[in-house]
């Protein structure tokens, strides 16, 4: 194997640091493994500069707006959830209220219907009763009329029979009955007739 420093130089491997040179010297002296460390102060300074600049630039142009945006979104989401919760509560209350109202209305309606039914029932009964009464009355009236007519007829018949009987009897007895006697007789016979019939 070639000496390490020659291999490195010929391949263009950077080895221009004291550390590497010293390590190379040690390696050459001992014949041991090659150094893996490649410490260079200028690389360190360059990367320090790049890193610090990147931190500053990103903080200004990226992280601040990103973190703010995320927080804005988070608070927005939290607000939305709160609003939704409030709206939900409100809706629930309203719903309960409406349900109550509907229930009340329903109760009222059914009460109305029941009342109406009752009224109708009552009216029906009343009408029926009235009709019954009316019928009864008319019948009674008819009966009374019939009775009166019958009585009239009977009385007329009796009168006539009495008249004829009196006149017959008068003719038989030869004695003229006075008008008063006549009347008295009629009434007596009518009474008897009425009692017997």
């Amino acid at each position, binding site marked *: 194997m070639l000496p390490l420093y020659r291999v490195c*130089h010929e391949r263009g491997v950077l080895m*221009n640091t004291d550390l590497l040179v010293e390590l190379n010297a040690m390696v050459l002296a001992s014949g041991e493994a090659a150094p893996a460390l490649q410490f260079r102060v200028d690389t360190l*300074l*360059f990367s320090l500069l790049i*890193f610090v600049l990147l931190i500053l630039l990103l*903080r200004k142009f990226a992280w601040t707006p990103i*973190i703010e945006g995320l927080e804005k*979104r988070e608070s927005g989401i939290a607000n939305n959830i709160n609003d939704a919760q409030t709206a939900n509560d409100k809706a629930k209350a309203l719903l309960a209220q409406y349900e109550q109202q509907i229930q009340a209305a329903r109760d009222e309606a059914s009460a109305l219907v029941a009342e109406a039914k009752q009224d109708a029932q009552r009216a029906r009964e009343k009408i029926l009763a009235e009709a019954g009464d009316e019928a009864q009355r008319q019948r009674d009236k008819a009966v009374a009329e019939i009775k009166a007519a019958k009585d009239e007829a009977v009385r007329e018949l009796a009168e006539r029979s009495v008249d004829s009987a009196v006149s017959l009897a008068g003719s038989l007895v030869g004695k003229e009955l006075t008008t008063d006697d006549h009347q008295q007789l009629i009434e007596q016979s009518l009474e008897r007739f009425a009692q017997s019939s």
Partner: protein
Amino acid sequence: MSKIPPERIAKSKVASLLTSLMLLLLMGLIAPVNSVDAAAPVVQESEAKATTKQEKESAKADAGEDHAEGEDHAEGDEHHDDEHSKEMSNFDYFLNQDWLISHVQDSDHFTIPGFYDHEDNFSLFGHDGHKSRKLTIPQISPYTDNEPLYEESEDENVSKFIGRVTFQPTKFIVLMLIAAAFVFFLFVWLANKIKDGNAPQGRLWNALESMIYFVRDDVAKPSIGSHDYKKFLPFLLTTFFFILTMNLMGMFPLFGTPTSNISVTASLALVVFLIVLFTGMKKLGVVGFWKAQAPHVDVDGFLKMPLTIGIWAIEVFGLFIKHMVLAVRLFANMFAGHLVLAVLIAFIGAMWGTHMNWVIVPGVLGSSIAINILELLVAFIQAYVFTFLTALFIGAAVHPH
């Protein structure tokens, strides 16, 4: 640290270990076969993704060669001439730890995946093409291959340091810039969508948002506390998405993984460390912060003082160690995973031209797919672990004990 899923990390480690073990065994098995292969050159071509890597050490000393990156590489198609005796064997070339490590390391160029001959010219069909496989990054100061970039001087402490910091734009720097730009534009786009608080639409938006929520609610809030986390959320989000992007970059051909470099992860950890220090000192005062490192010692008498000081020293030491380990953990995980991939693929190159390749190629393809999937998982886990530990350290600084 309670929230890191340790079994997952353990699993990835175990998987890497097992793979390495199997590879070592395989290497032992095929080593004798390999000595024959150099004598039996075959012209072959295989999967479209394959690239060629051949070595001509002596012939190409000045070329400043290749090293491809980790994922999808290296398969040989050989066009051997009669110069064989001078060359390294395939086996020595591909299963060489320098070569393997160079795939994962930083460099001054990108390597285009494809078919290449052993002189590193593009050659899908024989020697026709002469296009270099390297995309070299333009350098401010000329990059020299053959000399170290630091200068030896009498006053070694000063000049070495100055010489070392050359501000050389390397592959990983370019990749970091790409990653940073990608993350920046992605989240500016997302910010424009989110800022009005609209509902998310589409897969990308939802996916990114769920990750942001994850970092906020499962990483930042529980670790730092719901009062203080807001100040650190931008930093944690940047860390998570930047590291994740860099980790995932290694999954693409031509790119590499910047987080597999210790300098890069060290810079990340350094920022974390500085933020922890400043946060703690702002909250507790400079003296208060350092004093708060020592826990209350429930001992009376003359032992109390030395014990408190001793424990304070250990805690302060631990504070530094914790942040160094933060860098090393990320670096080592990404480095190791991609190195395993490089080793796997190198087997194809090492065995090319022997009869073994009929076994090796399907085996390597299958196992490298499996390891790639594992690497995808590791990329996410390591980004999460880094962010989570960062949040824990900040939380510990804000609320001591």
